[in-house]
């Protein structure tokens, strides 16, 4: 939800503090406020997104991928797929970016307390889930087991590889990753992300699952979780549509009765399961 003191339609100037390369086409940018305004604290709920204005090019909805406990900065992981994202990842340290937000609903981290947390991410979908992982690891005693399942197209498309290895060393944390295709030098798993479930022992009654990735991947993973006994109300997905205003006014991101920007991007599977199976919605 946008800060009430700030016009949610007015971008505020932030500057790129650091940019790092995750894969050949994916970069992580750390921004800090340049105007010292009230949004400069950078608070957000895991799962929320910002609208990033690339001056002279356009505006993009980008999920926040940093640590929610870190004050004074916001971190975004961006895959370069078009002119605006290409322009954004071409920024250097010190260059300005307009920021609106944060917007949207977050992952149900408070509701997941006392339960096991299963995070299932595909491709760059790990970025919106990384704040959840930071939060759970920071408040480890409030949660049960943390399971991170990550699928990517190939080893070179995996993001946060060092962090995945570091997370696996935490207590009660299981990290399993796989790629759809690997070269002969790749020593990790090869197979689709749903193939990882056979290595898990889920306790369905005390598990909350959070999914982010291509829509079809989330649909198949949600079905797999249902087959393993998870209630639809314990499964959450982050949806994506073309967002413009980010406050539910323009209708660009309307999805059935929902505006993804305002009612989402995080939805309970119980509320959207039927919609996921409808073509061209």
């Amino acid at each position, binding site marked *: 939800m946008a800060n009430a003191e700030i016009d949610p339609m007015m971008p505020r100037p932030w500057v790129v503090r650091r940019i790092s390369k995750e894969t050949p086409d994916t970069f992580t940018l750390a921004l800090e406020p340049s105007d010292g305004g009230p949004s400069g604290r950078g608070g957000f709920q895991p799962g929320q997104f910002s609208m990033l204005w690339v001056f002279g090019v356009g505006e993009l909805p980008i999920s926040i991928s940093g640590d929610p406990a870190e004050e004074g900065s916001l971190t975004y992981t961006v895959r370069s797929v078009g002119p605006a994202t290409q322009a954004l990842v071409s920024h250097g340290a010190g260059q300005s970016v307009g920021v609106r937000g944060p917007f949207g609903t977050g992952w149900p981290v408070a509701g997941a307390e006392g339960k096991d947390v299963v995070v299932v991410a*595909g491709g760059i979908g790990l970025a919106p889930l990384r704040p959840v992982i930071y939060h759970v690891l920071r408040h480890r005693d409030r949660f049960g087991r943390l399971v991170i399942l990550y699928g990517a*197209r190939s080893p070179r498309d995996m993001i946060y590889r060092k962090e995945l290895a570091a997370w696996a060393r935490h207590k009660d944390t299981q990290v399993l990753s796989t790629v759809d295709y690997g070269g002969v030098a790749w020593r990790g798993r090869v197979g689709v992300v749903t193939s990882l479930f056979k290595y898990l022992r889920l306790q369905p009654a005390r598990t909350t699952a959070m999914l982010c*990735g291509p829509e079809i991947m989330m649909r198949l993973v949600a079905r797999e979780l249902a087959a393993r006994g998870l209630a639809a109300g314990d499964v959450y997905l982050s949806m994506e549509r073309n967002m413009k205003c980010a406050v539910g006014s323009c209708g660009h991101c309307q999805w059935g009765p929902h505006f993804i920007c305002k009612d989402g991007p995080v939805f309970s599977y119980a509320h959207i399961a039927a919609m996921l199976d409808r073509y061209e919605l």
Partner: protein
Amino acid sequence: METQTLEKIIAEHPYFAGLEPEYTSLLVGCASNVRFDAGRYLWREGEEANQFYLIREGRVAIEMMPPHRKAIVVETVGEGEILGWSWLLPPYTWRFHARAVEMTRALALDGKCLRNKCEQNHDLGYELLKRFAQIINHRLDATRMQLLDLYGKR
């Protein structure tokens, strides 16, 4: 002692759950412990397929050799999984290479021996076919998902 251990391993394996004890004993009679060092090929495409493996530890890569390109790994099979079903269906030849990615321990089951037993005992044949059909079904689902190329362009 080893026989008892093999019996326990097979009886407790999810793919063989519910199998009549006499059939489990038949499987044990066809089983042996094997070990493959990292990099060693379990088989190569075109070779005769006369066994399957129950992976106990390690990981095996299924490799394809696309024309004019480097070999790619299309799947890995790890601990607790069954590797290989070409022994069950004519022409009993392997379709892909299988290479141990890391040191791998497995139970090797003599498929040729089991084929003969299945011909003599169709109940056993049906029980095994049901179980391997599940494995084939899961792999087919996974292959279809791979074909969807979920994560976009290269």
